[in-house]
């Protein structure tokens, strides 16, 4: 038996993904309706954002386009959680009904196997929308463009997305301990809506919470400062990639610990 490295898992994931997409395409109506739905969700989000800023040209020193940049950044960085980790939403159901046990019998990583089962294609629309918003804001603000900048953006976007994934993982994993854990996941999902605002507009208490307890400020605010305000980047911004990785690692450990202690239901 070969060792199961990252290439093994990538290959398996690609194969599952290809099959999954194939079967999704076969439900054509479902596919079209959910894509249209996602577009409208994004447009309405954008419109309410736009209306808000018609009345306030700037917010606590943040211009309209800077806010738009944050908005785009948050959209892009929450795409991976939407696309790759959507099965977390079904975790509670699977655990409750006892179906989760079927994931325990494969000779591959349990977390990987569970998450690989669902790829939510709707996230791609959000990604396109987010990237469009980012580019538009970038041009309007007149930020310089270089390969280094692009590299920085990519790294910071990727690590920011880890924060959101970590939050969702940990929240979903609570179902291994709590029976009615839907509220935990729902709460985290609602809080992520605050990620698109600069943290400076909140009171110090919430600033503390959003930075250290429920670190949604690392989803958009801290990492985007690196690009947006390159003259005065706070230390926390530079640390944000590490924060993302660390949080993800911790949430993975929590998830796995829960899964290992899972004992199933009678049959």
């Amino acid at each position, binding site marked *: 038996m070969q060792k199961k490295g990252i290439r093994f898992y990538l290959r*398996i994931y690609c194969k599952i993904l290809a*099959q*999954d997409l194939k079967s999704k395409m076969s439900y054509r109506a479902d596919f079209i309706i959910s894509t249209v739905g996602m577009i409208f969700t994004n447009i309405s989000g954008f419109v309410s954002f736009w209306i808000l800023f018609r009345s306030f040209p700037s917010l606590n020193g943040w211009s309209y386009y800077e806010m738009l940049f944050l908005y785009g950044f948050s959209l892009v960085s929450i795409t991976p959680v939407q696309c790759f980790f959507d099965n977390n939403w079904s975790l509670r159901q699977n655990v409750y009904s006892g179906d989760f046990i079927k994931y325990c019998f494969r*000779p*591959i990583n349990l977390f990987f196997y569970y998450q690989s089962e669902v790829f939510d294609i709707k996230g791609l629309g959000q990604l396109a929308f987010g990237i469009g918003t980012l580019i538009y804001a970038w041009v309007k603000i007149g930020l310089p463009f270089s390969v280094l900048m692009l590299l920085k953006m990519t790294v910071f976007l990727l690590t920011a997305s880890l924060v959101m994934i970590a939050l969702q993982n940990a929240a979903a994993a609570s179902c291994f301990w709590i029976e009615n854990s839907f509220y935990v996941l729902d709460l985290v999902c609602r809080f992520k809506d605050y990620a698109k605002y600069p943290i400076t507009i909140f009171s110090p208490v919430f600033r503390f919470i959003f930075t250290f307890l429920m670190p949604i400020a690392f989803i958009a605010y801290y990492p985007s400062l690196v690009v947006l305000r390159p003259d005065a980047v706070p230390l926390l911004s530079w640390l944000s990639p590490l924060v993302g990785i660390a949080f993800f690692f911790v949430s993975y450990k929590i998830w796995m610990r829960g899964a290992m202690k899972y004992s*199933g239901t009678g049959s």
Partner: protein
Amino acid sequence: MSAIIEIRNITKEFKVLNRREGLKGSLKDLFSRDYKIVRAVDNISMTIEQGEIVGYLGPNGAGKSTTIKMMTGVLEPTSGEILVGGNVPYQNRTKNAQEIGVVFGQRSQLWWALPLIESFKLLKDIYQIPDKEYDGMLALYQSLVDIEPLLHKPVRQMSLGQRTLSDILAAFLHNPKIVFLDEPTIGLDVSMKAKIRTLIQALNREKHTTVILTTHDMGDVDALCRRIVIIDKGKMLYDNDMEHLKGFFGSYRTLKIRVDGDLKAHAEEIAKELPECSVSADEEWISILVDEDKATVMEVLGTLQTAHSIRDMQLQEISTEEVIKKIYEEGVQ
């Protein structure tokens, strides 16, 4: 023959919160740490050889699932030792998974939206099955069952019977040393049950796979198992051959006769003539339970013939189902 599963004195205990009744009770439960210990599996030992088909029986809630979960590595025993193919299942869950296959009657482990052949291909990658073995296995399947119509059908469109069949094929695909089958024939029609039994038997013969079968269907047991293990309330009740089981409560057979006249009156007479047999009568038949260790059926029949004119008769063996029912209800003396 070599031992593939070795279980030594395993016990599994669960901590269960003592729940109180009513809303007030549930509020109190929030803060209470009043646990009681429930022993689901109590000091069980057994050794299973490579290639055996073992029926693992017990009434609902007896601890069967818990034992299976310990063998598959999902649960860690509270005490005792398990070795499955030389592995400690809980500590090497993924390694153990490579050596076993699991089928739960009602829960498909296949990818719901995919045609069976695509599931097979994914399993081939996941279990890293070499091409040659994979092709050989498919060829074997083809010779045993008609899988062509299944291969290109998404699992969600299959009937329960087809799905169970597919799940069993998937469990054997990586040629595991042991396959655990949990109620594989539940809810299936008679012909599908027969098909699945034949398939399991053939795979066991061809691949020398050990099969641990939990079921409530004695037809499965009669068709497949030479050895059965019965547990109840976590304790081992029986672990031996099927033949032993039949003679477990003495070698009983039931002789049923029909005579002219009032059956009840005849039955009372017969009871006096044959004090060692228990006699009962219904509308149609007089049933005589004969313990063959004391008197053979032929002797009993001879005695009866002298005093009564027998119009019709039947001879019934005690069925596995009846023996198991007796064990569940009365335990083992």
